[in-house]
């Protein structure tokens, strides 16, 4: 289950010895398993029992090889036993995990939730914000790069509870949403007749989630939206397999003294590689000497894509022989990757693409990055790696998500577990940005402060529009060396009460509820 943002998604429980997956509603706190899965008992003797069959031998502080315990699915205790040893062997902060009797918890998912550090960062946030599970059959689904069911409109939830504020962050080209004229900033008013702003019954919440996030193809839903000018319209949308475009916008602005390149990069998926190469080639040929890289909605993906882009920005002179990112695992594995067994080698700045063709370069010693809470993982690696080779990164927007970590998803008995196993550090040895990167003039953020301007997301303008708030701030900084005087806004936390200051992006048809009730929370 994924409990980020207080949401629970798929819940697995034991019923007559069989695991049954069911959706649960975060707002109601109900689960298909009643209270059974939360019935936890702990002890040191291994006699607590899970209520569903066999127990396993348990000795405090003794951890059998997890590989020998894998896929023993006859009981919760057996699965817990695997998790206990796997976490102890590979979890980055295994020393901070309590040693819990695998016989004491009836649901492996609940047991897994307990197998993490309880430490907090300097901001008071959980040190480990990325500990979750997924049904293996869902996780292992294969799809064409960038293809998923939907309309091609990317919703962003500025407030997921009443009075809700659901906006369009951007629209992929050649999709049902684009053909209906839906544009960034449009506000969702109603879905299939359900009030999207104030509706607060379970039925309305269900209707909103089903309409905005269709799970199947050929679903037809009517969505009423309001433009920035206050005009309301209703779009009839039919869900399709949508092919996203990870690099949507590239252009050059001649300021008179500078040639400023702009590039909107939304996803580190496979198809991004060729699009990034095309974009950088365009910018190089135009002779840009400044770059604004818009990654405010880029949550990461393939690390090799990030390394290639960082190389294309900085060029060979700055990166030759330098480390893009070095992965460090726990102290049981100082020299070897615990999963692959490979000797640990720094990830270099990649000078060639997947076909070994030389990459185009901009050879810049400064780059502007537009960021927000959706800027995560591999996107943060771009920022950190460039800073590690003395490329000045000027940050415009909001604090990034703070995920210098990664993992190898681990399957066991039909569930795929995600537990942090490694941290990435740059050429200068820095990787401690678990509270994110924050623009230098942010007043209350706890993230790693780097030079830049805090600017709220501007839904009144298209991405790449020179008048869009964050892009305009970058252009101003390039022209004057300073941030906009007013109103810069303070964009620091993902949430402030029930109001999500910087919004969060919902990109694909997840199998869980995102729109929340108010009274029902």
């Amino acid at each position, binding site marked *: 289950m*994924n409990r*980020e*943002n207080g*949401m629970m998604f798929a819940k697995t429980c034991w019923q007559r010895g069989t695991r049954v997956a069911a959706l649960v509603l975060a707002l109601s706190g109900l689960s298909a398993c009643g209270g059974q899965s939360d019935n936890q008992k702990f002890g040191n003797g291994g006699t607590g029992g899970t209520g569903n069959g066999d127990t396993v031998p348990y000795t405090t502080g003794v951890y059998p090889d997890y590989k020998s315990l894998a896929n023993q699915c006859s009981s919760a205790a057996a699965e817990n036993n695997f998790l206990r040893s796997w976490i102890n062997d590979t979890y980055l902060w295994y020393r901070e995990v309590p040693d819990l009797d695998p016989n004491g918890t009836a649901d492996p998912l609940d047991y897994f939730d307990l197998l993490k550090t309880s430490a907090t960062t300097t901001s008071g946030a959980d040190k480990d914000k990325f500990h*979750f599970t*997924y049904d293996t059959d*869902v*996780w*292992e*689904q*294969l*799809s*064409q*790069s*960038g*293809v*998923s069911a939907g309309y091609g409109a*990317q919703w962003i939830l500025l407030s997921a509870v009443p009075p809700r504020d659901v906006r369009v962050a951007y629209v992929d080209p050649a999709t049902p949403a684009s053909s209906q004229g839906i544009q960034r900033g449009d506000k969702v008013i109603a879905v299939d007749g359900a009030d999207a702003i104030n509706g607060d019954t379970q039925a309305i919440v269900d209707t909103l989630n089903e309409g905005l996030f269709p799970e199947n193809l050929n679903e037809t839903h009517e969505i009423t939206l309001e433009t920035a000018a206050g005009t309301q319209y209703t779009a009839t949308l039919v869900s*399709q*397999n949508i*092919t996203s475009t990870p690099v949507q916008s590239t252009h050059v602005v001649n300021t008179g003294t500078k040639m400023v390149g702009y590039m909107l990069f939304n*996803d*580190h*998926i*496979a*198809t991004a590689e060729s699009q990034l190469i095309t974009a950088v080639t365009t910018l190089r040929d135009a002779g840009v000497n400044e770059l604004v890289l818009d990654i405010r*909605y880029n*949550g*990461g*993906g*393939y*690390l*090799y894509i990030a390394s290639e882009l960082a190389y294309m920005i900085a060029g060979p002179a700055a990166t030759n022989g330098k480390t893009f990112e070095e*992965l460090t695992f726990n102290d049981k594995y100082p020299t070897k990757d615990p999963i692959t067994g490979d000797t640990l080698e720094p990830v270099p700045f990649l000078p060639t693409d*997947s076909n070994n063709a030389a990459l185009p370069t901009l050879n810049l010693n400064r780059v502007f990055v537009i960021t927000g*809470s*959706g800027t*995560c*993982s*591999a*996107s943060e*690696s771009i920022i950190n790696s460039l800073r590690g080779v003395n490329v000045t990164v000027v940050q415009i927007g909001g604090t990034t*998500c703070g*995920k210098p*970590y*990664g*993992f*190898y*998803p681990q399957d066991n008995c039909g569930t795929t577990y*995600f537990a942090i196993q490694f941290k*990435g550090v740059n050429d200068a040895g820095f990787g401690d940005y678990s509270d994110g990167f924050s623009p230098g003039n942010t007043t209350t953020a706890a993230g790693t402060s780097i030079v830049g301007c805090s600017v709220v997301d501007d839904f009144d303008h298209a991405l790449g529009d020179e008048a869009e708030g964050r892009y305009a701030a970058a252009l101003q900084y390039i022209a004057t060396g300073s941030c906009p005087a007013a109103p810069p806004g303070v964009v620091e936390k*993902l949430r402030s009460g029930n109001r999500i200051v910087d919004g*969060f*992006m*919902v*990109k*694909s048809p*997840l199998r*869980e509820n*995102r729109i929340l009730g108010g009274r029902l929370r």
Partner: protein
Amino acid sequence: MSAAGLLAGCAHSQAQPERPAVIEKPGDAARAELQSVVAGMLGVNDVVLAANALTQSAVLFVEQGNQRDASGRQLDGRNLGRPEEFHLLRSGTHCVLLHVNKGTRRELRHIQCRGL
């Protein structure tokens, strides 16, 4: 396709000059065959493909676990792997799908393609 047919097809294909290709006249049958062949080459039961897969480009990428968290971020946001890559080739009069990662090939019997 039988093993003998596959071998014969490959032997024939390899004797012909090859070039990247795209699917012509994609219909339900062509899409079904492509989906079946790609899934078979990956050893899975199903794979989600766009309706216009390989109609505008000779390259097809397939990824695993394109799942997002509650914030819409990639669950595996620092993915150390690589995608599965397929190339559609026109080999003589045949259309052949190459799985680049494994170097395996399959002839597409019911798909029309044209070289680029």
